[in-house]
């Protein structure tokens, strides 16, 4: 397995969707490739950071305006 092959299947690896022999090949490559170890670690971190950054909450004033907006137009 090359770095390119590894990066191609990274999502499937992290989601547990690879076959057992593919996982073994990927982990053999990881054991000897520092760049891919760093890639995997930072890719996984990027995924979780993006998810956390995306959990924004609608501001309360916006909820109030939405409520008013709907009441004015419906019924």
């Amino acid at each position: 397995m090359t770095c390119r092959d590894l990066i191609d299947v990274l999502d499937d690896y992290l989601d547990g969707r690879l076959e057992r022999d593919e996982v073994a090949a990927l982990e053999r490559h990881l054991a000897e490739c520092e760049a891919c170890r760093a890639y995997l670690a930072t890719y996984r971190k990027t995924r979780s950071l993006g998810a956390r950054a995306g959990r924004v909450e609608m501001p309360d004033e916006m909820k109030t305006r939405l409520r008013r907006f709907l009441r004015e137009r419906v019924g």
Partner: protein
Amino acid sequence: MPHGVIDSPAMTSDEQLLLSRAAAGDAGALEGLMGRYSARVYRLAYGITRNQADAEEIVQDVFLQLVLKGAGFEGRSAVGSWIYRVTTNVALNKRRGKRREVETPLDDCLPTFKADGHREGPRALLVADWSQRPDAELLSGEARQILDEAIDRLPEHYRAVLILRDVEELSNEEVADIVGDSVSAVKTRLHRARMALRELLTRRLGAEAR
């Protein structure tokens, strides 16, 4: 594994009731619908547009459509996926023609390889690993600004699949259904978005990591 919010069982009669009461202007029912759906509509609308004023207009538009559609839904899962689909479409349309200059062509942010398939580039960058920095630190201060700028630079249809998958925790299949693309196209787009984001973060955070 994502839990697939929209794969709920068929609509309960209480959902049907809520929708028809809301259509008739019942304040409590409107409140119930907001309680159920406004958080996800806002997250997705803001996540795609990255702009509060745009997100607010989208939330209003989507809720008005939802209420006017009233009891026309056949199941709770139909409401759930309808909400995501309409929000995505409205948000992408709003951004059309407003595309900011800061958006980076993604190709510049994807990993490059030598002919033999191994990574190419400055070694310090290739092995830079900032993943041990605590989330609390990365989600605040200067690092947070770097993260926000990196997210801003993604094209909006990439941000759409990222939010649906990673924030809303839908499956690839559900995301494909919502954005009207094949599962493999969605997987490719997600992977490219994450690679680009990782690259932008590593260029800014990686130097400090070693």
